[in-house]
């Protein structure tokens, strides 16, 4: 049990650092067990360093940097434990326009293995999707769904 946990932990750690570097285009990230002696009960610390910045306490990161770090960790976990489909509800809301595009490109590199349903308000995400659904309330309080196939968009 302990041995399996340490092995998986190391795998997530390596994947987390790789995905972080890809999303932030540099820097580094790692997860550490707070109490190495008690592997099965210990808490976990997350230590990140955006490119060019000093290693700092997670709390000092900006809102967007935190969200992007969380997305990197999410993808590291999904790589270890892939899911056939994912539903993400506005996970990229805190990102600026440039980071939304990096996020959308990353998801695109993943879509062979996993199907994604992204609830979003961001143009960067919409532009990188294969198909689009619009949800409206023409009648107050009653939701309707309209398929907006991407090809219609160009028209």
């Amino acid at each position, binding site marked *: 049990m302990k041995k399996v946990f340490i092995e998986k932990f190391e795998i997530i750690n390596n994947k987390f650092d790789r995905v972080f570097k890809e999303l932030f285009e540099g820097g580094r990230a790692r997860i550490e067990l707070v109490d190495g002696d008690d592997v099965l009960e210990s808490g976990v610390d997350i230590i990140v360093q955006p490119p060019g910045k000093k290693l700092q306490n997670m709390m000092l990161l900006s809102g967007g940097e935190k969200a992007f770090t969380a997305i990197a960790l999410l993808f590291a976990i999904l790589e270890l434990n892939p899911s056939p489909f994912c539903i993400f509800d506005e996970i990229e809301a805190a990102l600026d326009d440039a980071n939304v595009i990096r996020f959308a490109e990353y998801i695109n590199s993943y879509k062979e293995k996993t199907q*994604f349903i992204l609830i979003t308000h961001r143009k960067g995400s919409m532009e990188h999707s294969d198909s*689009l659904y619009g949800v409206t309330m023409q009648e107050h309080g009653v939701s309707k769904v309209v*398929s907006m196939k991407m090809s219609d968009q160009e028209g």
Partner: protein
Amino acid sequence: MHLKRIELQGFKSFAGKTVLEFDKGITCVVGPNGSGKSNIADAVRWVLGEQSAKQLRGSKMLDVIFAGTQFRKSVGFTEVSLVIDNEDQALPIEYTEVVITRRLYRNGDSEYYINNNTCRLKDITGLFLDTGIGKEGYSIIGQGQIHEILSAKSEDRRGIFEEAA
């Protein structure tokens, strides 16, 4: 394995029967504030067996049944189905198309179905056990929840790794 269709009826703001077809790849769901986008994510979490009304932003489970508007009456039950392509037999069941259904009546009665055969919740959670899908995994991230992965206390974070390990 991939999700082919979601069918909703009487679920939250979806009064009538609504169907969303999906291809592989990336599908974006867009629309104004309050139009019903997050209700779709709630529907998927619900049909996979979610038992906490709070996780579905309600105070009691009956809150998921269409409550009516100023111009429409409420309805007596809700039903959601997930239609999954199982050509690759990722789900340990002999069908090439698997349909998971959950129904809830105003009187509190709740039913589960797999391909139109009544079953128990345990059968549904058992089906998805090693796939990464289900209300415990990281495959469904609700609005505002992305920050929880970095949650403040280091012992809370522990749960993530146990889950994944």
